[in-house]
């Protein structure tokens, strides 16, 4: 079938959507479901602006077909409700124009969840998946570290 009416679990809710087989998850989120927080950038898997969280792991939604997300738990930036990393971005001035920020936050949120003991090398490895041309990475790295540090306090 070239068209599918599918149920996607997005931000904890089951959403029914009709997509082409060829539609990316990014397109379905933005064009079909009105979730425009995930940003289209390169559309080629390079920039990371479209990053969402898929079953706890970061995923570039431009690199995934919407039909591949059936049975997965998708979290977009709209699904984060005052997550610690969001406040940390504000406190550490970790954005400027803000276009790449949702992707960065979803990637950083996944990192904090998956690797609460992440060291500098791990943080650098993960942050290389996202491109920001105006802020620089130092503030973003500081934001990640501030959350990791708070989470380690007994």
């Amino acid at each position, binding site marked *: 079938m070239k068209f599918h009416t599918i149920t996607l679990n997005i931000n904890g809710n089951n959403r029914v959507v009709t997509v082409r*087989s*060829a539609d990316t998850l990014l397109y379905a989120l933005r064009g079909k479901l009105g979730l425009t927080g995930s940003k289209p950038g390169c559309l080629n*898997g390079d920039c990371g602006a479209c*990053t969402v969280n*898929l079953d706890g792991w970061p995923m*570039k939604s431009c*690199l995934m077909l919407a039909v591949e997300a059936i049975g997965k738990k998708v979290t977009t930036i709209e699904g984060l409700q005052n997550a610690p990393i969001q406040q940390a971005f504000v406190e550490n001035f970790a954005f400027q124009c803000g276009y790449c920020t949702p992707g960065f936050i979803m990637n950083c949120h996944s990192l904090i969840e998956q690797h609460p003991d992440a060291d500098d090398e791990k943080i650098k490895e993960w942050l*290389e*998946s996202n491109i920001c041309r105006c802020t620089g990475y130092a503030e973003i790295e500081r934001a990640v570290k501030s959350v990791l540090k708070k989470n380690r306090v007994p």
Partner: protein
Amino acid sequence: MLPFDFDYYKPETLKEAVDLFQYLDQQGNQPMFFSGGTELITLGRIDLAYTDAVIDIKDIAESKVMKVSGDHLILGSTLSLTEIEEANLFPLLTKTASEIADHTARGKITLGGNICAQIFYREAVLPFLLADSQVLIIGPEGKKVIPINEIFHEQLRLKRGEFLVQLATDSRFITAPFISIKRRQQWDTGYPLITIAALKTGQELRVAISGLCPFPFRSKEVESVLNNIEMSLEARVQGAIELVPDPILDDVEGSAEYRLFVLQNLFYDVLARLER
């Protein structure tokens, strides 16, 4: 977004996938096996890849295996590079795979997808070439197990309707000393220039290279010269350089001359590390 439509199938068994491909092929379709799918999605967007029927093999149990069986590590072709990296059961593969694309993308790129890709780097194959791994392939003629060095010549020589299911690697190669180095022209995130992976078994050094030619390769001739300790270090490196296959890539990432310069230094690095 892709500018063409296709049917999407997600078979749950090897037989179902193979039969489906044959059926669609006979109906005049252009079916494609699909694992991570990143190449179809990115190249299809700019009309460099096309299919009208995607057969997604990620739900097939055999293709998702990651286990030690006797003396062999078995890895399924639809495991993502991130899954392989996190499990770290084959350190040389972990190191080589962890340099492919970027961390998030590696959560989508699969082992089989990288090995069978159109993109010429295909670095994930290097550790398996070095370890004389066996590949399990399924197709219209059934299952077959073949040494990877007999079926990988510039690319995995699959017949129409076949796909890679698993790779099996002897544990003695898993624990052997190794080095894997990726050189880029720019920073840590630029496109790859050359990746070299090397393994030491006994006193024998094995090397496999990606990014030098428009295909990854392991060359017994190159290894023979590098292992000739009766020659001076400089003569071994120079002799190995003269034996690499043609053509040498000459593109925007690096001229042929520059690539050979980088390779020369990589050979020195490998020998320094593994001949201590």
